[in-house]
């Protein structure tokens, strides 16, 4: 078990290193003078020596490439991701910090609700195969899943925000609210999260349901289920403890692999609602050509996804006695 965890950790370290390196390489692939393109907008805004420090954060020095790479890594280790243009003169790390918190809260909650609800519906659909849930709701959700997340978000915002006025139109909390650990603030945050979270849930629910339904159908055909029925176990126990419990394993694994994909979609949802998470920052960075912020976001989002994947690996380990003791 310890060895398995170490192996996975090794893999994520390699993946993290690969994304750091990509982050270093990508600007240097750009045609022309990448450093000039990257920092053109800062010219005249910062003092020349500050400019040098900013460039150094990305390794843009006159030194040979490998030395640039080490300069870049050194700055990374110190937590220096440079300075944001859009939020001048804030450091990129500060800007990302608050954004990441909102994204993790919104996307995290939405994805967990969607996965839990979708898996449960998938279990029921497979258990009553060919029933209304299976032949009615599945295709309906598959159709909803075909819409881009952000388009569903636009529609939800249009209907429930603009036309009906049930929910706030933008941001994570009202501009008249004082952020703090108060009930009023929490309620306001929840009210602001309803539309974006629901549109993510609606867009992803069908995928989880279908995945669970298919593994569940396969599990239900096994002898382990026949034996459970033969022993006279109550149907609910067979469905949940014998079938669903086993069908869940491959789905948790694919959940891990989908985390990055779902996060990508929820980034776009944030943009529709001007939700102050990393997705919203990302588009600000793109529109303002704020390259330091963009690259910092890429790095932070990637590392967050790697951490989420590692967490899912641990959950799988905990769920499956076979890997638990073999590894």
């Amino acid at each position: 078990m310890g060895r398995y965890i170490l192996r996975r950790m090794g893999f994520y370290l390699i993946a993290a290193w690969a994304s750091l390196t990509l982050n270093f390489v990508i600007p240097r692939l750009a045609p022309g003078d990448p450093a000039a393109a990257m920092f053109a907008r800062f010219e005249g805004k910062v003092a020349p020596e500050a400019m040098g420090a900013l460039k150094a954060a990305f390794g843009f020095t006159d030194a040979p490439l490998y030395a640039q790479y080490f300069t870049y890594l050194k700055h990374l280790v110190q937590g220096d991701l440079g300075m944001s243009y859009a939020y001048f003169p804030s450091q990129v790390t500060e800007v990302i910090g608050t954004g990441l918190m909102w994204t993790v809260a919104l996307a995290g909650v939405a994805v967990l609700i969607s996965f839990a609800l979708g898996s449960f519906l998938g279990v029921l659909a497979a258990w009553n195969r060919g029933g209304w849930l299976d032949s009615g709701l599945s295709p309906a959700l598959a159709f909803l899943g075909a819409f881009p997340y952000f388009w569903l978000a636009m529609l939800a915002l249009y209907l429930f925000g603009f036309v009906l006025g049930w929910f706030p139109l933008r941001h994570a909390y009202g501009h008249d609210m004082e952020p703090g650990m108060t009930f009023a603030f929490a309620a306001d945050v929840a009210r602001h999260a309803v539309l974006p979270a629901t549109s993510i849930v609606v867009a992803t629910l069908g995928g989880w349901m279908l995945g669970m339904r298919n593994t569940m159908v396969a599990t239900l055909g096994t002898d382990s289920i026949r034996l459970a029925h033969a022993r006279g176990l109550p149907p609910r126990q067979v469905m949940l403890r014998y079938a669903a419990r086993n069908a869940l394993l491959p789905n948790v694994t694919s959940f891990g692999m989908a985390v990055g994909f779902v996060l990508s979609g929820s980034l776009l949802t944030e943009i529709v609602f001007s939700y102050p998470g990393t997705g919203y920052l990302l588009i600000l960075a793109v529109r303002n050509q704020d390259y330091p912020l963009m690259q910092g976001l890429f790095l932070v989002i990637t590392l967050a996804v790697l951490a989420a994947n590692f967490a899912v690996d641990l959950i799988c380990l905990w769920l499956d006695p076979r890997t638990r003791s073999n590894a």
Partner: protein
Amino acid sequence: MRDSLRSLLRHRKAAVGGSLLLFFLLLALVGPWFVMDPTDLVGRPHQPPSSAHWFGTTGQGQDVLAQTVVGARETLAVGFAVGALVTLVGALVGVTAGYLGRRVDDVLSLTTNVFLVIPGMPLAIVLGAYLPSGPLRMVAVLTVAGWAWNARVFRAESLALRGRDFVSAAVVTGESHARIVSRELLPNMASLLGSSFIGNTLYAVGAQVGLEFLGLGDVSAVTWGTNLYWAGNDAALLTRSWWIFVPTGMCIALVGFALTLVSSAIDEMTNPALRVHKPAPLPKGTILPVHVDRPAPGVLLSVQDLSIDYATEKGASRVVDTVSFDLAPGEVFGLAGESGSGKSTIGSALLGLLPSSARVTQGRILFNGMDVTALEGAGLRAFRWRQVSMVFQSAMSALNPVLTLGEQFHDTLAAHGRVSRTTSYARARELLGMVGLSPDLVTAWPHQLSGGMRQRVGIALALALEPRLVIMDEPTTALDVVVQKELLQRMVELKQRLGFAILFITHDLPLLLALSDRVGILQGGKLVELNTSEGLRTNARHPYTQLLLSSFPHLIAGDVSVTSHAPATPELSVSRPSTRVAAIPGGHR
């Protein structure tokens, strides 16, 4: 190939998805000639649908219908191009890794997995921000961000194919790698290539639209993504101009839905298990109402004129045909026959375990005078295991892998009466000891046991409620001969101690003759002969029985000496090889 194409067309999902897809392809191809120039400012901004502009106008006064139709062209072109490219790159990397293996596989797999965990959208955004604008940038960015999943799928598939005989044969005959890959591997991946291409196109359309919505496409081009980008920029929501973003979104969803349908149709055709069967309805059977006869003296189980039909797509198919036999308390009764003779179906029917496509159409099964075929719900569950239990052929896979043995014993006992975990575990330890396993295994997981040990657990589980009849459905076929012998010996000892009856189902007639008091021979669903073991050995009447017996030459040659009621002796003659090894001279191990 033509057959699979035809069945694809017959498939409802494929038909709906395919025609939708065709519609949009036509729209993208010829549609732009029938609408106005999508970039022309033809009217006042934010105008709702009217006869002049069916879908209204955009925030800049362009025709929304024209933008939607023209947008299909580049969106689908880029979508299919990326779909094809991603499939190609993924297949190339995956097949190379899976086929060559070793070092190459290690490196390629690691790269693939790393790219798989790096989130695609941020990577695409950062890449896109640095590359010069244009459709080629979109193709490049989406391919880099999306190839990994495919590589993984193709690697797994080629690993599986690599192990198959026809590929090994090609390797042995010294064919070149290129030839093996192109002649043996790729043709067998045709359906995977097809469904991957569809899946990747789905990904490409979605990701492309997302990036363009962000403004990372060419914002002066007309595509579905840029339509939505401009809808957002020109305050479509604020002005409540739903007509600006609804048509484009619907088109994206319909294309996505069509692709999903086609891909799931391909999946269902290659993996029939996913299909929902709608078998032809079975004729109503002549099942008698529940009634309890006074059991005939000396009869525990009485199968009377039992017929069972399976519903197939071609209509009902009779697998058990008017079978009758009785079984006395404590008797060992054998049912022999080849696979498909209906013997396992009879076993399933005794426990009410027939699959939903099978039905008892005639006759009844009386257990202690009670008709089992009429039981259902709680009554059926109470009957199962308490009266009749079963040892499955595949105890290896029949135990729940995520529960300890103790939990599975507890579930069984708790289903038939209130019982505490402590009591259940104590009983489980006792039962494990009874079948010759260490009681401490109560905390073990199924995967920690060998096949023989798991089959013993299967027996212990079957005896948990001290049933009066234990069905053994080919309980030893998956075990080697030595383990088989030990197991059956144990079973016979337990039977003598506890006094339950056994219905033993197998294709191994010599084994049956050694074990059973009486044996029934099944052929094509009919009971063709029924006699004592002794009677059958010396005087088989039915030609089929004679055939079954003659397929065991050693038996006829008289190299075994078994007597009818000798199963408990240590010399239990079950060490004879089963049918599968009988053909090997000197097959004794």
